[in-house]
């Protein structure tokens, strides 16, 4: 049974359609990345499954049951920003988390604060914390009681490179211990490195979903360069079968359906268009490439 099943969830903010019929299942033990550009509906989706927002249509089930406060108590969650009482210390705030959710114990509060390197500042007021420390406190709160399911919205937001590496390591360890982690991010590299599954959203629509390797596997990516990259991109766009094209510095990337990137023909076609290709390879695809392909974005997130 999937940990979470979404069934055609839709949500509008007035005339703006934030989510449109989004459905997918989150398998047990997965690290499930929800990926999308800003405004694609990631946080709205997580807000709905945590009952902070109501869906206009559709529904969701946790462990095969409709969402409820009792089920939420078993889920460690960080949504959008760290939300804590600014006049209380980190430790006092986690006592409230413990009191509401029943997760963990007084003793465990110190353990999770240690796990996110906040032991030294546990008695300082939340309002005195830096952005990174606030984020780490929120992660500590979601770790309390070692819940089997965690929902993390942009978990590395505000962290320095060391903090980012630590959180990624933590997530990897949690997965190895059998935890299921649902994670929204716009950091493609992050999702590619730590997620087993991914759902890609674009303007509230689900454009791809599945195992990370499967989502990435259905395109071929051609990397090329020429004296005049603009002209090269134009030529590649006109090549029959070419998908999205983009330029990064002097390199031009064009995506093709799996097995449909004939390198010799591309070279000949470009030459016939007056472009001499100086570099042409079939690249190993990255999630980033697939993301741009699917979302139609022309610049990096």
């Amino acid at each position, binding site marked *: 049974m999937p940990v979470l099943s979404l069934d055609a969830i839709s949500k509008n903010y007035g005339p703006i359609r934030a989510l449109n019929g989004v459905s997918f299942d989150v398998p047990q033990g997965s690290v499930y990345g929800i990926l999308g550009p800003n405004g694609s509906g990631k946080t709205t989706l997580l807000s709905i499954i945590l009952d902070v927002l109501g869906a206009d249509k559709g529904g969701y089930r946790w462990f095969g049951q409709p969402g409820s406060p*009792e089920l939420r108590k078993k889920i460690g969650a960080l949504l959008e920003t760290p939300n*804590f009482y600014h006049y209380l210390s980190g430790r006092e705030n986690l006592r409230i*988390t413990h009191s*509401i959710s029943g997760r963990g114990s007084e003793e465990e509060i110190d353990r999770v604060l240690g796990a996110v390197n906040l032991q030294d500042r546990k008695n300082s007021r939340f309002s005195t914390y830096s952005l990174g420390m606030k984020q780490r406190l929120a992660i500590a709160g979601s770790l309390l009681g070692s819940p089997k399911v965690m929902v993390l919205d942009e978990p590395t937001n505000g962290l320095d490179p060391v903090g980012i590496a630590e959180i990624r390591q933590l997530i990897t360890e949690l997965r190895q211990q059998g935890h299921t982690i649902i994670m929204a991010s716009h950091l493609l590299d992050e999702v590619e490195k730590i997620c087993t599954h991914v759902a890609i959203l674009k303007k509230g629509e689900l454009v791809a979903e599945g195992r990370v390797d499967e989502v990435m596997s259905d395109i071929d990516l051609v990397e090329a360069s020429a004296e005049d990259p603009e002209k090269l991109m134009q030529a590649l766009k006109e090549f029959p079968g070419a998908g999205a094209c983009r330029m990064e510095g002097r390199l031009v990337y064009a995506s093709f359906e799996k097995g449909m990137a004939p390198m010799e023909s591309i070279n000949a076609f470009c030459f016939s268009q007056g472009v001499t290709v100086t570099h042409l390879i079939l690249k190993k695809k990255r999630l980033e490439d697939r993301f741009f392909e699917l979302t139609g974005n022309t610049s990096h997130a």
Partner: protein
Amino acid sequence: MLNLLRTEWLKIRKYWAFWGVMALTALSYPGINYLFYKEYLELTKKGSSTGDMAKMLMGNPFVFPENFHTIAFFSSVFVFIPAIVVIMLVTNEYTYKTNRQNIIDGWSRNQFLLGKFIDVALISVLVTLIYFIVALAIGFLSSKPENRDIWAKSNYIGLFALQTFSQLSIAFLVGFLVRKSFIALSVFVFYFLIVENLAVGFLKAKSHDEGRFLPLEISDRLIPLPAFMGRFNAENYKASLAAIGPHIGYTILVTALVWGICYWTNRKRDL
């Protein structure tokens, strides 16, 4: 229920602004009443004809059992101080989005609201306790031992508690709907001190006293002017005492309506 109480306690236990305003309440109630009591003593102790006349006209509003009525009346003017606390408690949750986190951590929306209802009820009890202690202290100070019919007007303790809870509930509603602390405080204090008083006065002069059905005035009429002020217009005083009964019903109705609006809004509103 115990869990809600425990969690709300954890929230306010180290909230120094909360305790600061509660301390202000604890000081203002004895302060204002003692001020009036001292004034009364000054006015009546002179042994002059003015003093004797004042005594004759006013009696002693601070002796048992009249003290419970007089002190309830003066204290009720300062309900806007604990109202500040109530508004702070609810708007803080929205400002820092901790209401969201409470839901994410496993409370239902109803539990969140029930927690706040408990806060308002407890603050009302605390404020009533302060009023009660002040009334007792001034009663014992001013009454002669043989004249201590202490509890004859203790019904004002209940009326004061109901009035406080009703008016703090309205303060809560303002904070709950507005969500921004400064705006909510301004709206409530401006309405409490100015708008409603003007409206009540205007409706009394120009119409048939429909102002008595305004949200705060409904419970204001649970505690009419003290008896010594009533002597200037005995007819009116009698009518205001007779109105207490119906206004208990109206107050309970308004308070229930306030929490009903909160319940409905809380169920429907995105967090």
